[in-house]
């Protein structure tokens, strides 16, 4: 059974093999989507938990983009049914070569890419967004205008990442009231488009609140925190249990 959660992790944190084992845990538990973040020295839109994880992966573990691609390829070949989304800050992709990166993604069967510091219609984005193949997920907040939303929908995006509120990752959760309108607008225009909401989600109650508006809840910092406190298994399974209870 698929649970409407997008579980996030930082590749290479605390080590590459451990991050792969964590990915396997999320897959085995039945979470609908796995979000794999390629670590970056300066994750400009992340809160302290993910920033620290990135720093460990980059500075202590020396994780390269090539290491990450290899790890992702391993997961996609072993779990071909699992939906996997890759997340990376732009400079790592730009340095690797955007075209080369896209080709790798397509070869691995990755269909969605999150690049938080890349407006999806900027010049560099063209190399990473090919409707029907690899697509960029717009990461939107409650201040997105209706006109902008229509523009993005017209560009063929079929998955939207909404920030729960004006926050960075790992902040205290709150759900901006305008997100409901944004999600409805997306669905009304493109019935097949999916909507995920993330940033600050850590409890089943918050997941339920988010699922009233969106197709999936995105969980990142809370999982890393649980892992650091050696309670990931228990925390994650309880979260899933309570999420499935009433959905």
């Amino acid at each position: 059974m698929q649970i409407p959660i997008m579980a996030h992790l930082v590749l290479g944190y605390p080590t590459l093999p451990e991050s792969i084992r964590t990915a396997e845990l999320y897959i085995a538990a039945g979470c609908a989507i796995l979000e794999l973040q390629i670590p970056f020295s300066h994750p400009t839109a992340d809160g302290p938990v993910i920033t620290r994880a990135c720093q460990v992966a980059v500075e202590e573990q020396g994780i390269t983009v090539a290491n990450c691609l290899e790890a992702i390829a391993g997961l996609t070949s072993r779990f071909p049914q699992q939906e996997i989304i890759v997340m990376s800050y732009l400079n790592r992709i730009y340095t690797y070569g955007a075209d080369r990166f896209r080709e790798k993604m397509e070869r691995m069967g990755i269909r969605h890419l999150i690049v938080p510091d890349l407006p999806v219609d900027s010049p560099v984005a063209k190399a990473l967004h090919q409707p029907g193949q690899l697509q960029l997920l717009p990461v939107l907040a409650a201040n997105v205008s209706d006109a902008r939303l229509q523009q993005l929908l017209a560009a063929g995006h079929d998955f939207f990442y909404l920030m729960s509120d004006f926050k960075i990752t790992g902040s205290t959760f709150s759900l901006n009231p305008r997100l409901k309108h944004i999600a409805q607008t997306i669905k009304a225009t493109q019935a097949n488009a999916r909507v995920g909401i993330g940033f600050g989600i850590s409890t089943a109650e918050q997941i339920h609140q988010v699922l009233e508006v969106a197709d999936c809840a995105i969980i990142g910092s809370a999982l890393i925190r649980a892992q650091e406190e050696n309670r990931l298994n228990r925390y994650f399974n309880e979260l899933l249990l309570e999420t499935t209870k009433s959905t």
Partner: protein
Amino acid sequence: MISTTSTYRQDILSSTGHFGPYGGTYVPEVLLPGLQDIAAAYDHLKTDPDFLDEFHTALREFDGRPTPLTPLPRLSAEIGGAQIFLKNEGLNHTGAHKINHCIGQAILAKRLGKTRIIAETGAGQHGYATAAVCARFGLDCTVYMGRIDYERQRPNVYWMELLGAKVVPVEDGSQTLNDAVIAAFKDWVEHPESYYLLGSAVGPHPYPAMNTFFQKIVGEETRQQCLDQIGRTPDYVMACVGGGSNAMGMFFEFLDDEQVQLIGVEAGGRGTQPGEHAAKVRQGVKGIFEGYHSYFLQDGDGNIASTHSVSAGLDYCGISPILAHLADEGRVQFATASDETALAAVQRLALAEGIIPALESAHAFAHAFELAANLTPDQVIVVNASGRGEKDLFITMRHFQPESLRKVGELLLKG
């Protein structure tokens, strides 16, 4: 952006944020509406007579412009080469060129109806100027500063706080300017209704062009002063380069004077290994970070490298996309000066001419002294003294009079 009929200056003034392949707007979508509002306001205000009048009035009445172009006869004779002149931006209110773009942006922010200002600072000069301008214009002010800079530029922290600003030390990363920029952007994501008063010619559009626009007064005055005082344009114009605001301010008016050579001086730090310097043009590679496409110091796999400079204001990983383009075009040349030569330049300028420059500016002087020795007395070098050196009290004192510093510390502790 270069076409055969237009000039460098026109291209920068009319740009939509692209300078050759550089520049752009690479930020999270949540920041786009705010940036678009600022870009639209800038586009309108740069030709609005009311705005320009308010800007120039504040530069005169609050900041103290124009600043003088000062000949350095004793030093020039001592070196025995070119005649060196100094544009004394250290005489600006709050002690550096930074206040030029702070005044411009604060007036713009007021016109946008903003009430809260966010800023980053390295040396503390941009933060100090922002705090002063915010107090003057009645704006709430929060300044982010890397923990290391917070400690090494302590006098400026105190001035900012005295002016009512909230100064937040940033504990992330290498705890310098780069980390302060990131913290300021995060604050802006959390408060998109605030105004981010960015302090150099870097970042997403419109900041590189807009700060150049507000800083170009430096070169405009300098060029006219050269014509008045020496009857011609100079042969060389030099400025230190952190992000590039004082350099762009100084160079802009000279960009289309082909006979004037423009030289940007980066921080050579204490060596050429990664992490030992901040020489972006010399040792950086192309990348996209903190909102813009330019040269950045990196590790080869897309991570941003740490930097070092004795001057907090030059201790930064990126460079203005406008300067990156002008470097590629060959219009601006780049050199480096080390920590040691910059410190020596502070001492030399102080003894020979009675002027104590900021450590940042001292990098430009260090290179100017070297170059002047190889030139002839009919040649003229103008150096932008982007700031004055009082803020560096504890750094230069530790270097020149370590014993005095220790005694001052002990005395202060005794109360």
